[in-house]
């Protein structure tokens, strides 16, 4: 039921009930929340807490598929020319569409900016968020029509003057294909420098518009909204066909998997099944990472489900796990040069580790986007972003308590 950032959905079905594909099985709770739908038809066999990729057990609905994969009867296709902006946003909310880049923030919230925030530029993120992941690339190559349908809908919703699809320059095939598909349409395809974290929202906005989202602010503060290309496809499904978000593309990769693949997966599929479909493991993995190598979460095993945010499943071998012992900072400044937010990671990390939170805050700890670049480049293998992450959490906790 926890499939997105915000309040988890609340189970609305009971054990023993039979459900159809696309039927709502969890209802939204609050504005920053979306409903959850059955990914296939079958019988509900449990409504209870189950292991979740976030590391704890969370409320879940377990469905035993009947193999028929039967759609629910009440899908409501929409005619875009007859729908108002509010209708479209509502359809997106009911379909449970969230940001598909990995953060899984409910899309309808992003589509409802306060009226005083005019969105002039709408950016679609076709920059793969992290190394190893190629899910968005495949989506652009295989389903450009769906993406562009979503792009047109979102352009209409935001009333944006400029629409840009940003793609990293190392995907010339995707750039060429989308350029061809967009010929004549008021959509720019913009090749971008290949540089992690180019797919991070603030960096993408700066690369496309030259505008910096103010510290502590949101993209709408500079008149921009950003959506992932796969989110656009999900919006198209939701609005045009009334189909809820029950599947996504996930990259299963890493040195420990036999046949790395991009899979179209149903939300809720156990990870063990993904591994099976990819020919199994070449050896016992050293690390199981859900998401990408820079910001993904390690897992205890394969018995958790894929969620709407599961952009990748990365399997590292034992030898790929970095166990270099930490050394003293030699002030080489690589972290400073690498930081996309122009922070001093080594300084903030040192303050965070000593619980000098006021100082860490003064050095803009809260502006850290946790991309992990600093830890990646550090020759002394100091866990910089990890320390900063701790510092940020401690600063927030302190603020809440005061």
């Amino acid at each position, binding site marked *: 039921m926890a499939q997105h950032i915000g309040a988890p959905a609340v189970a609305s079905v009971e054990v023993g009930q039979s459900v159809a594909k696309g039927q709502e099985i969890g209802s939204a709770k609050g504005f920053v929340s979306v409903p959850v739908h059955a990914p296939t038809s079958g019988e509900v066999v449990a409504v209870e807490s189950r292991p979740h990729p976030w590391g704890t057990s969370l409320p879940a609905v377990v469905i035993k598929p009947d193999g028929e994969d039967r759609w629910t009867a009440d899908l409501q296709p929409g005619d875009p020319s007859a729908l108002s902006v509010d209708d479209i946003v509502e359809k997106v909310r009911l379909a449970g569409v969230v940001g598909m880049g990995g953060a899984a923030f409910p899309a309808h919230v992003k589509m409802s900016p306060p009226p005083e925030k005019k969105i002039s530029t709408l950016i679609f993120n076709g920059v793969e968020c992290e190394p190893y992941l190629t899910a968005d690339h495949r989506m652009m190559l295989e389903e450009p029509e769906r993406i562009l349908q979503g792009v047109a809908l979102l352009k209409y919703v935001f009333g944006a003057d400029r629409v840009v699809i940003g793609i990293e320059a190392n995907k010339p095939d995707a750039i060429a294909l989308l350029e061809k598909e967009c010929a004549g349409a008021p959509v720019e395809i913009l090749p971008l420098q290949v540089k992690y974290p180019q797919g991070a929202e603030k960096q993408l906005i700066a690369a496309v518009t030259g505008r910096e989202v103010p510290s*502590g602010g949101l993209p709408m503060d500079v008149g921009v909204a950003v959506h992932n290309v796969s989110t656009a496809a999900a919006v198209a499904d939701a609005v045009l066909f009334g189909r809820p978000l029950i599947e996504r593309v996930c990259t299963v990769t890493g040195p420990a998997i036999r046949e790395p693949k991009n899979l179209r997966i149903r939300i809720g599929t156990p990870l063990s099944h993904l591994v099976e479909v990819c020919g199994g493991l070449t050896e016992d993995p050293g690390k199981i990472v859900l998401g990408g190598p820079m910001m993904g*979460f390690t897992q205890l095993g394969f018995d958790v489900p894929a969620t709407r945010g599961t952009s990748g499943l990365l399997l590292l071998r034992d030898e790929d796990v970095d166990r270099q012992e930490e050394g003293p900072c030699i002030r080489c400044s690589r972290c400073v040069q690498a930081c996309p937010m122009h922070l001093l990671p080594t300084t903030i990390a040192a303050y965070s580790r000593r619980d000098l939170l006021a100082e860490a805050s003064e050095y803009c700890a809260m502006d850290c986007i946790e991309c992990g670049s600093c830890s990646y480049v550090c020759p002394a293998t100091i866990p910089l972003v990890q320390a900063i992450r701790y510092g940020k959490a401690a600063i927030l906790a302190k603020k809440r308590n005061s």
Partner: protein
Amino acid sequence: MSKQLYLSSSPHIHSGDTTSKVMRAVLYSLLPACAVAVYFFGPAALTVLLIATLGCLATEVVCQRLMGQPVTIADGSAAITGVLLALNLPPSSPWWLTLLGAVIAIAIGKQVYGGLGSNPFNPALVARVVLLISFPVQMTTWSSPTPFGSGLDLVTTATPLGEWKNAVMLTGQMPPELQSGMVDYFLGNMAGCIGEVSALALLLGAGYLFYKRILTWHIPATFVGTVVLFSSVFWLASPDKYPNPLFHLLTGGLVLGAFYMATDMVTTPVSTKGMLFFGVGCGVLTVLIRLFGGYPEGVSFAILLMNAATPLIDRYTRPKTFGTSGQGATS
């Protein structure tokens, strides 16, 4: 699954570049300069190199044992200090002077501050300056370069910068022949510290470090550029008295200083802007000391003075945080 699974906070991959790899690359890059030193100054240079390097390693071991800390000579930093110290000594340096330098560099220059990463001053330069002030005679007895075989005894002479300073002090004029040997100066065929004589060898090594992205252009370019520009002002104003910028560039310790000593990561600013300030400051101080100070050479003093200014530079050159107009936190 039978084996252990690792759980950790992201990121899960690392560039693979480690401190000891960086240090090893710096050591490799110093090999051409060491080779040229041995070519021009023979066994004397080799002896200085060995004593300084082994002395630094031994001092590091002794200090860390005494303080009950893990011994970290494998990281390569003490070896680099040793080689750099040797390159900053005259070839005729007696064994006890070299050894004393090694002890000062590691014990006083580095370990008392807490070891690698904590020292405010470049350890090799601390040792060089302490020796220069304490043993001025031994530290300024220079030898003529004698490519191998040509004579066993080293002939005492003066460095080009020293010759210039003496002449200007005595006559107010620069001897014109001093500026005629630029090719020799470039190759290293002149008197000076073991490692500072050959700009060619040093630049070769620096090129390798640029290629490995261990060096960035900021400090060397601003340091050298400032020396060239600033010394040009004096040269153009009074060419009979002041040497031309090329002379400044190729004689003395500028190349060694700008590419190897002023780029020591630990003792220099972390921000790009800070590095530029640092380089300019080093350049200005070097020219001022060379032209108007009591010592003929000013590179070491300039770098040490700028080392002292590094925390201040860091404070005032904090990068502008993305999405803010200044450096302050907004939350």
